[in-house]
């Protein structure tokens, strides 16, 4: 009988303590952000989809070596290049120029292997995270075009 009563009492006490905690939370300031109206700033290391880096002339740093393409586990990077001859110090030199850099973001898993494998500072992560669309074509990015648009 005493066990019966003491269980009722201790049980009720535990319930009261719990209610005390939630009541305290009722009056504490709220921690959420009203998302579409305000949003958090992405950290410096945030890994979004990739983006080409430009040099001072607005041309991509990329030398089209294809390391990123090989490093990518999902095969979402396709790049094409052509060889151009440029004149440096009076001599003609052959250089690869990037003509196309496509990212198929639908299969990208944001692992960052491409950026890590790049030794020419050619690509970086964008800070974009609000990507949404109903068409998958919207996630086939032409990064070269994006670079040009950014510069124009």
């Amino acid at each position, binding site marked *: 009988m005493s066990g019966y009563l003491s269980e*009722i009492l201790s049980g009720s006490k535990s*319930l009261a303590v*719990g*209610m005390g*905690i*939630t*009541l305290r*939370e*009722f009056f*504490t300031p*709220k*921690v*959420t952000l*009203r998302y579409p109206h305000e949003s958090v700033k992405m950290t410096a290391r945030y890994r979004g989809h990739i983006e080409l880096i430009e040099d001072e002339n607005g041309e991509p740093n990329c030398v089209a070596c294809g390391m990123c393409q090989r490093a990518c586990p999902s095969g979402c990077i396709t790049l094409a290049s052509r060889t151009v001859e440029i004149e440096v110090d009076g001599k003609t030199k052959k250089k690869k120029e990037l003509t196309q850099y496509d990212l198929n973001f639908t299969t990208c898993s944001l692992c960052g292997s491409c950026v890590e494998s790049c030794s020419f500072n050619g690509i970086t992560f964008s800070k974009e995270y609000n990507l949404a669309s109903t068409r998958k074509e919207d996630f086939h990015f032409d990064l070269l075009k994006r670079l040009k648009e950014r510069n124009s």
Partner: protein
Amino acid sequence: MSLTLINVLFAVVAAIGFAALNAAYLVWCERKGAGFFQRRPGPTENGPWGLLQPPVDGIKLMTKQLIIPGGVDKAFFMVAPVLAMFPAIMSFVTIPFSENIVAHNMDIGVLMIFAFASMGSMSLLLAGWGSRNKYSLMSSVRAVSQSIAYEIPMLITVITVVMITGSMDLKVIVEDQTAGFWQWNVFALLKSPLMPVSFLIFFICSLAETNRAPFDLGEAESELVAGFHTEYSSMGFGLFFMGEYANIVIGACLTTILFLGGWGCPFGLLPGVWWFLLKVYLLIFTFIWIRWTFPRTTIYGLLNLSWKILIPISLFNLLLTAGLLKVF
């Protein structure tokens, strides 16, 4: 004759209006309250403080397709949501909000309200049976055994109160307590020293009767998906939803009338009806507060609580009160 008819019509419209408005805005209160208990602000987007949320929700529910799954028992399936809402509205008829504001006072008001309240479990049973869904069926079986288990201690405590007052008229019960807050039944220690306990028992039972957490075994979303209303969509679901909140208002009103002195005001600052509403909404806040604090019990935990704790204590209280009434 015509005057009574107008009176009745007015009363019915007022009761439906009050029930519907409360049901709609209690959803808002619940969501807001849940938010505040959970470190978030709750609905904010529709109107100031999200106040337009209930009408928007209602429009959404009404415009959705009412799906009647193949093989259901159509008659039961359609009747069940109506039965969920109807007894709640009927119960409002006899609830006195103050000395004068009552649709139709009856000298057996208590009896009438409990008669209608017991119809509530019928709707759960019909919904679960008619849905032709195993989860719904299990839920309705639970709901019925829960109703039976909790109506007993609830009625025993009500009998205690009725014994003290000597009347089943809700108005008389309140008038018996209006002298001051020490006269409220919850503090009426002289009449029966266990009165606060009775109040708690009644409160717990009304939680269980309205299928509220932690006794929401009929819904038990993590076990039975959505329980008896798994198969309902559109306003069918909406009616269950509103019925639940209307029942909460009834529960809070009854608790106020039976134990907290109805419209009786401790200081007399405001007209009685405001005190009544204040008490009712405080109780509803407690309902919400409890829901967002505790995990759910299980069916045997619930039955154990009722049969092993609530019923013995309320029976003991009944006997004690009867004895005291006889002696003094």
